């Protein structure tokens, strides 16, 4: 498997898993508060990470910078996730909330360009534009 195929396959696998996750979360949040659903979702998170940590024999590679960025990633990811479901419980229209969130790659692409100096090809840029349009249209 070449490098490009690897990231593409795992990105599509992630798409599939997040797609299923959204269905399960919707079913879970039907008769529970967003915080109640999030509590059980967190238990599910721990159920995956703990066996993984045991499998790795508790050998986590230490890096101060890696630790800081990963923790920040977890906190911002968790807060983003919580605000996402809170937006619904506060009366936000599903179509508006999800469409707004679907445009988040615009911020990521801008940050990757400015902070990480990533340069994407014209084909990839067209793909990104189509993906953003698709995400906004699908989450109607």
């Amino acid at each position: 498997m070449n490098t490009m195929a690897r990231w593409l396959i795992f990105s599509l696998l992630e798409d599939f898993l997040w797609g299923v996750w959204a269905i399960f979360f919707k079913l879970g949040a039907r008769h529970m508060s967003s915080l109640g659903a999030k509590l059980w979702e967190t238990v599910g998170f721990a159920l995956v990470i703990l066996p993984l940590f045991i499998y790795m024999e508790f050998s986590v590679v230490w890096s101060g910078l890696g630790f800081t960025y990963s923790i920040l990633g977890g906190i911002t990811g968790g807060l983003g996730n919580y605000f996402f479901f809170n937006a619904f419980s506060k009366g936000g229209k599903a179509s508006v909330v999800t469409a707004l969130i679907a445009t988040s790659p615009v911020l990521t692409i801008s940050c990757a360009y400015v902070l990480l100096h990533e340069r994407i090809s014209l084909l990839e840029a067209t793909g990104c534009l189509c993906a953003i349009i698709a995400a906004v249209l699908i989450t109607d």
Partner: protein
Amino acid sequence: VAFWWSFGYVPLTFVLICIKGFPRDFNFNCAFYSLSAGVIGQLAALAFYVALSSGMLSVVTTLSSLYPLVTVILAVAWLKERINKRQVIGVAFALFAIVLFCL
């Protein structure tokens, strides 16, 4: 990364519980679905890290934002929800984007 990411994610829920109070509502089916969502979400996060380790952040993140495509397909097939013309066009755009990334 996945481990330390969870180290930030998991305690956050407990901080939110401390601020908002412990949720009193409980429904077995809903708890099961939410717990399953957590397991699947963590696996998705792991796939994201593997993709990021060899792909560019800008491209991987944008491709990841296509996950509603799967949700729409599952919502139609499983929850019997109906989709409109706008979403059908969106699905076409999503498939076109995936083709472009594959080239």
